[in-house]
């Protein structure tokens, strides 16, 4: 057997820093996902079916309100479906945070000299990359609903998808990090995340919704993501909002949402408690 020198080198290198561990966690996240065929297909397939079925089913049933008025439901529902794909991918990342930490690579990360910031950065950017890619793949279907993108509008759509991905992944991280098991997480998905999506203008427009729901929808940051996508994809259709709210304003709202979520995730990851796997 090969033998090392009798003594080890003095110590490990001074510090791993933040960038190298973050990079390695990001890279690992992406590679792992794409080696699980079932997952890759699954996060697109469910929303895709949902879109086809609901879109065709509702067809031209609804012709009220600005924006939705002139559209077939397939068209109307398209941006929301893209966000659904992003959400599903973000949920997958959240699950892996919990599972990985009880029994997985994250255990090794927690006992390595890696700053918590690197873990948050690597995981969130990794999940964001996946959600963005999966979301953008859905654009393959855009010609079917009469969307014609210019280079500029595509760039902006990509930016919006990125921001929504980032915000949702960071939100997911913030929720998942303090959790011990995936059981409680399913409750959160059903009681919080799905409603978040339901009330974002993905399924129905704000303008004709009943008063109280409309207020919730305005308060929901995801609404601005859906609206931004809708504006970029269907520039001729009027805004869903009953007041003027420019694309820029929507995107800025998304940026704030994303930053806030990341800050929350970062703060949570830095706590050290006396509970296990702090």
């Amino acid at each position, binding site marked *: 057997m090969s033998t*090392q020198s009798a003594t080890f080198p003095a110590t490990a290198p001074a510090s791993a820093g933040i960038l190298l561990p973050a990079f390695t*966690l990001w890279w690992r996240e992406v590679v792992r996902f794409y080696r699980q065929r079932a997952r890759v297909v699954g996060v697109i397939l469910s929303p895709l079916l949902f879109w086809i079925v609901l879109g065709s089913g509702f067809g031209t049933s609804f012709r009220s309100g600005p924006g939705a008025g002139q559209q077939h439901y397939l068209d109307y529902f398209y941006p929301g479906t893209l966000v659904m794909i992003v959400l599903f991918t973000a949920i997958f990342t959240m699950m892996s945070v919990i599972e990985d930490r009880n029994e997985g690579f994250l255990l*090794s990360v927690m006992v390595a000299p890696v700053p918590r910031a690197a873990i948050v950065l690597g995981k969130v950017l990794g999940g964001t990359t996946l959600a963005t890619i999966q979301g953008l793949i859905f654009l393959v279907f855009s010609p079917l609903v009469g969307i014609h993108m210019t280079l500029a509008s595509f760039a902006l759509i990509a930016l919006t998808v990125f921001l929504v991905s980032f915000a949702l992944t960071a939100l997911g991280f913030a929720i998942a990090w303090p959790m011990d098991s995936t059981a409680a997480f399913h409750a959160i998905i059903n009681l919080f995340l799905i409603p978040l999506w339901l009330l974002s203008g993905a399924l129905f427009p704000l303008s004709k919704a009943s008063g109280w729901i409309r207020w919730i929808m305005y308060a929901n940051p995801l609404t601005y993501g859906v609206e931004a996508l809708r504006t970029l994809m269907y520039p001729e259709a009027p805004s869903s909002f009953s007041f003027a709210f420019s694309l820029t304003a929507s995107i800025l709202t998304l940026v704030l949402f994303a930053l806030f979520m990341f800050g929350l995730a970062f703060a949570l990851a830095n706590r*050290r408690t*006396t509970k296990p796997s702090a």
Partner: protein
Amino acid sequence: MTTRPTALDLGPSAQPAAPPVISVRDLVHRYQDRTALNGVSFDVRPAELFGLLGPNGSGKTTLFRILSTLMVPTSGSATIAGFDAVHQPGALRRHIGVVFQAQSVDLKLTAYENLWHQGHLYGLRGSELKKRIAEILARVGLLDRRADRVETFSGGMQRRIELAKGLLHHPEVLLLDEPTTGLDPGARRDLWQYLQILRDQERVSVIVTTHLMEEAERCDRLAILNEGNLVALGTPEALTREIGGDVILLEARDPQSLADRIRAKFQVEATVMDNHVRLEIEHGHRFVPDVVEALPGEIQSLSVSKPTLEDVFIHRTGHRFWSEDAGPMPETGKKKAKKN
């Protein structure tokens, strides 16, 4: 059998004072409803194979988590390589390698990729990292499988990758949590041989948690835990020598009465455990004919054995390693409280 210091470590050491590489002082940890560690203190020396032996619920897993900096204790201190686990975890982590009982490899990644990511966590990169990965894979005998996904490995091979991950950055201290779980006897032997090589050639301090006596006997020194307390500390030889004799187990129809009669007749301590009468007697082989002659027909079967670590455990705690209930204390007949 290697030569290991046989003196108990209480009192001055035979070696010149090498500062301990791990120092645990009055470590207490409470979960919401119970106390897992009740003030544990011990040292681990450099280049030592140190065992943490205890049944489930003894606190060894909690202790492991605190030492590997996964958890902050309720009170007390733990220091590794001079760094405090609570206040300087970042610096401490550079000096330890950890092999968990739970799986911490990515099954979907290859052996090489797992180690590549692991290296990055310690600031290793580029050609230096490549070299180390090749070295460590060669040492655990998996160099030819570097490009295969870990999910294709057998259980023993996956354990070896875990070991490789823990050692990649050449830590001074290696912490292993029940490392032989799920391994066949051949793989267990190989692992222990490797740990001993690490100790001897690389001067690594290896800390192993275990609930298996035969593994604990292979350690240089041992800490035996029971219900959050440290009940024994020292080399296996010194601990078993404390028993001061052989262990005799007698099976009888009425163990309690037999125990009383033996006590009365021979003035020795006799306890009843698991429906057997248990005696610790020097030169047990001489005592046997005496007791059989004195109490003919009472004894259904009899066994004489050299003391084992379990006997040390019984001696110190008053009950068996795996029992749910505590037996009565020796000679006074006082019962310890039953666990619910």
